[in-house]
């Protein structure tokens, strides 16, 4: 079986498992809201029917369809996570490339120390302190600015550290040395040899990074009071609004599975070592 076929079947199995898991969550959930439905087999059949039509039922706390409740919140989270992911990745990659092209060990080490320190402060504390700093400076607080900045600052150091070590490893490869000695120009050297070799671990990081961004985004949204999925989810947990909890878990799990699949496809496209059949 080819790499992509295997990945695709793997992803669909994961999706099925995820759907089963969230369904189970609704079945074992305690509390008053679900008891009428659980006692009534007809109602359960109806739930299954609704799920087949990709509807998640009605929110118990708000009395409106879950789909309509979640859609604007999903856009809210996307409005934070997507720019933050793009900016964090661009900043991390650019810094790593810049540091690698300028072979000053002191600069690289200084940047790595800063990134490692930034990575170590827990999200909750870092974001709270950032909010404080922004208020103090009179910056954006109630807008999307704070969560985007906070999330970017939590993504960029990780990307930088990984990119920096991937480029370092690629530079040490024998084929890079040989290409340089054979007289390849700097431009060709970077574009043709070093960057593709460094891409593999970074693409694998992409899926993990998206998952991390979604998680950190919950904290950032909660701190900034930004109407994304995070606050809705926390509220739903507090008020035992299971249909909303189930829907959000299913949705985010599906996003993760698909983004991992996209990362795999990218890897397949870019790394010839994977295309060789085993």
């Amino acid at each position: 079986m080819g790499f992509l076929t295997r990945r695709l079947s793997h992803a669909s199995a994961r999706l099925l498992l995820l759907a089963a898991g969230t369904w189970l969550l609704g079945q074992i959930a305690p509390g008053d809201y679900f008891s009428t439905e659980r006692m009534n087999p007809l109602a359960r059949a109806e739930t299954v029917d609704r799920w087949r039509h990709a509807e998640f039922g009605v929110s118990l706390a708000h009395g409106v369809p879950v789909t309509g409740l979640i859609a604007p919140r999903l856009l809210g989270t996307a409005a934070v996570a997507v720019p933050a992911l793009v900016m964090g990745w661009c900043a991390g990659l650019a810094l790593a490339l810049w540091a690698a092209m300028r072979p000053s060990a002191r600069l690289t080490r200084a940047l790595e120390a800063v990134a490692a320190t930034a990575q170590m402060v827990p999200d909750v504390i870092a974001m709270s302190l950032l909010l404080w700093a922004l208020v103090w400076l009179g910056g954006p607080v109630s807008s999307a600015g704070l969560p985007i900045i906070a999330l970017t600052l939590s993504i960029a150091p990780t990307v930088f550290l990984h990119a920096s070590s991937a480029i370092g490893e690629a530079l040490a490869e024998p084929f890079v040395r040989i290409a340089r000695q054979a007289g390849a120009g700097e431009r060709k050297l970077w574009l043709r040899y070093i960057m593709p070799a460094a891409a593999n671990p970074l693409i694998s990081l992409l899926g993990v990074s998206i998952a991390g961004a979604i998680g950190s985004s919950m904290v950032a949204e909660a701190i900034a009071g930004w109407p994304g999925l995070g606050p809705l989810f926390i509220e739903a947990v507090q008020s035992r609004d299971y249909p909303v909890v189930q829907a959000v878990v299913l949705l985010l799990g599906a996003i993760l599975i698909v983004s991992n699949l996209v990362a795999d496809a990218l890897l397949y496209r870019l790394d010839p070592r994977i295309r060789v059949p085993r």
Partner: protein
Amino acid sequence: MKLRYVPLTATFALCLCAPAVAPIDPSAQDREAANTAPNRTHWLGTDGYGRDLWSRFVHGGRWSLGIGASATALVMMIGTGAGTVAGYFGGRIDRAAMAMVELLLSMPWLYLLVGARALLPLDMPPRAAFAMLVLLIALVSWARLARLVRGVVLSLREREYVAAARGFSVPDSVILRRHILPGTLGILSSQVLILLPRFVLAEVTLSYLGLGTGEPDPGWGGLILPVKQAYLLPLQWWKALPALLMTPFFASLAITARDAARKAQAS
């Protein structure tokens, strides 16, 4: 001792002997002394109810670190158990266990943690809440370790001394105890340090989001909350002190974890 371990050990030591270093009851309210700046009785000042922030920091640390450490211990047991059994016996057990692992790993961890919290009541007596949080964190987080252990066990199973033991019809339980489990110790010892900060942070995040134990019991999450009220901070700057004190602790814990991960990678 190296400088970077100092915040870690100092905080652990302080929290272990919390009653000695912070004799003021962390949940005792002194309304006369509400919102006072740091002074000789209240080293870090007091909060809006007149509760001593130093006491709440130290006792809260006891709570958060206790939960983190207990959850780590529990995950070690579940993860090692599941991974060993799955890797050693293989077949249907392996497939079922790995399906569970896949399921747990296919969701954002923080969302999974908060979502699982929905299954449990919000208000609980402290002891029950402690056990509940430990169980919750452990049940959501054992998957990665189980997969790591399974990988190690799969390769250990093929070793010659295991085959020899099987040939002498040594029972499985003895093979597991004598030949397989000692081989997983290396990975377990580095994983302890990697998991501990995550789990302490999980408790802090849960209580920060209002899903932990709740008032009046201290937890570190509640202590970070005032930092969010940014408009108050220029007036009541001392309320940020507990959060600032936690930062070196987490940094030192993270450095230790990174060293452990590097050592594990090198070996």
